[in-house]
């Protein structure tokens, strides 16, 4: 589904990603872990199409197409979703209105009928239960006045509504208390299926206590230095990133798993 080959990217001429290789297949859940400043969020933002980052080398193939050639909104309509580390508050834009516009943009793109307000509301009320949020938030402005935890749950809720083929979750676990963490994990687990893939970008392994990844990758200084199974996360928890760093960079593409991308 997703093939990242020798990806170099940076901001203002400063290179942050220094040759990332990653292959993700449908049905898989990958976790990319790394210390602060390792380039985790840059990778997520580049995949979502943030234009503040400049890709200087490499390729990203998504479902057989050059992802980097696609505008951010086209990526979204093609099934890419990024849960923001810092979801943006947008005063004055009603959440239900926004999500229906987003969902219908996607449905239209795929030649499906647009949902009217009634059908949409029924659909979305089911989804919001998944993250245990009050359905009244649908009538509030996007993320406005939400606590940090509510914003993160809101991202998972949006993900549930838009049903992405590829979800990239950028530090969705940060700032969550244990109850919210479980709710978010539960939401993610609900969305795991054979047709879609999820990449969880995180600093800590604690979310991985509730969401079991198929693959764990360690990103340090813009490169994936190690890849492994869920046990790698536990090793990281014990040794920390310093212990991992010494093992040297794994620059070969990591090809993993079931199915074909």
């Amino acid at each position, binding site marked *: 589904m997703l093939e990242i080959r020798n990806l170099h990217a940076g901001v203002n001429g400063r290179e942050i990603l220094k040759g990332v290789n990653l292959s993700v297949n449908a049905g898989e859940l990958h976790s990319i872990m790394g210390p602060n400043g390792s380039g985790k969020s840059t990778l997520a933002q580049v995949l*979502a*199409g*943030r*234009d503040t980052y400049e890709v200087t080398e490499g390729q990203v193939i998504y479902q057989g197409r050059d992802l980097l050639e696609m*505008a*951010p*909104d086209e*990526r*979204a*309509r093609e099934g890419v*979703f*990024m849960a*923001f580390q810092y*979801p*943006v508050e*947008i*005063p*004055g*834009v009603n959440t239900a*209105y*926004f*999500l*229906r*516009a*987003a*969902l*219908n*943009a*996607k449905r239209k*793109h795929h030649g499906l009928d647009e949902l009217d307000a009634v059908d949409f509301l029924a659909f979305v009320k089911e989804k919001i239960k998944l993250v245990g949020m009050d359905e009244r938030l649908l009538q509030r*402005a*996007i993320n406005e006045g939400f606590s940090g935890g509510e914003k993160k749950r809101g991202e998972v809720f*949006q993900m549930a509504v*838009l049903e992405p083929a590829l979800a990239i979750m950028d530090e969705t676990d940060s700032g969550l208390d244990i109850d919210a963490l479980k709710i978010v994990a539960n939401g993610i687990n609900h969305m795991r299926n054979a047709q879609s893939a999820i990449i969880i970008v995180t600093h800590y392994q604690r979310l991985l206590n509730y969401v079991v990844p198929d693959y764990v990758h360690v990103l340090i200084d813009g490169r994936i230095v190690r890849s492994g199974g869920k046990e790698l996360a536990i090793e990281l928890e014990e040794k920390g990133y310093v212990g991992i760093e010494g093992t040297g960079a794994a620059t070969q593409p990591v090809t993993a798993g079931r199915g074909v991308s």
Partner: protein
Amino acid sequence: MTDHRQHANVYKADFAKLGESTVTPQLLTIRRQALDRFLALGFPTTRNEEWRFTNVAPIARTPFRLARDNGAQIDDRVLNSETLDPDWPRLAFTNAHATPACSSARVRQDSLVIESLAGRLAGEPRGLPPDLTKHASFDQEAFTALNTAFLDDGAYVVIPRNLVFEDPIHLIFVSAAGGNGDATVSHPRSLIVIEPGSQATIIESYVGLADGVYLTNAVTEIIVGHDATIDHYKIVREEPRSYHIGATQIHLSRNSTVSSHTISIGGALVRNNITAVLDGEGAQCTLNGLYVTCGREHVDNHLRVEHAKPHCDSREFFKGILDDNSRGVFTGRIIVHPDAQKTDAKQTNMNLLLAEGARVDTKPQLEIFANDVKCTHGATIGQLDADAIFYLRSRGLAPETARAVLIHAFAGESVEKIRPQPLRRQLQQILLKRLPHGELLQEAV
């Protein structure tokens, strides 16, 4: 020799033609004084601090002839599209002359008055309503002086004591340039009196009938008695080549509550002079506004809030959306008199610039002569938030749609404050047409 003096003869000639037979000597005197004052003041220039950012030279150099009511008729289409609710009392004016065929107001009953001012001036008992010209001073205001010199017609509304008048009263002022291509001017003059303990909603709509060069020079005096409440709306939607200069003069008594909304969405040059005098303890005044400009339009909101008595609150909340090479001006002057302790005044002006060529000048002016007061002001001028655009796009919204969503959200905060639903819906529809890519939103709604 300045332009206005060149055209002084035009104004004098039209003044001489004003009908005098149906007017009381008292009004004749006021008119003459006002004309003299106008001739002495001349049109303001940008050297005048109050007009520093707004150049009215295009008005001064145009020989505007006094518009006649027989030149243009409101046709049914205009009236139908402007009628917000057929059940509301409505007074319609063409070039500041009452158009009874298009009005549906109840006239005087039990001292309730909703009628044309000309009707009152010509009717029995004759004479000027006591409040007329008492509050909107023309001593330093050339345009108010000019309006008063030609004081003839407009709306006259009196809500008698302790009456809650539920239906909004809709005043429609249609301006139309002369059929022969002459530039014309009209001077709508309205007086609204909300007597003690009463409540009312007043909507003034200023619209143009056909494209042409005209000047609407309006003055509305609003007198709010003690413990009375008014919800007031002024909507300016003039034609692209036209000018609108309007004064809204509000006088608040003890424990009265005013919320006045000034929405400007059309006209080559629009200037709203909005003055509120809080002249009784416990008065509360909210002035809201929205201005939306494009092309080379220029909108100037000039606010003056005077706290004359203690324990009064005032709130100003004006938002602007400026596209192309248009220009906005906001001046918010708050004067707190020495007696006016415990004044609580807050002023906010927020501007959204959609194009490189758009420009805003915003100027708070606080003059505080009391020591126990709370006065705050804030102004912002910015562009659409790139983070917000990216967020919306990352969910699949096309860039134009994302922009449109954010622009409408910015306007929405002002539109939501409009209480009468039909008016709010009308403005939402107008904004969808007027703001960039609104059609994308209609699709999504």
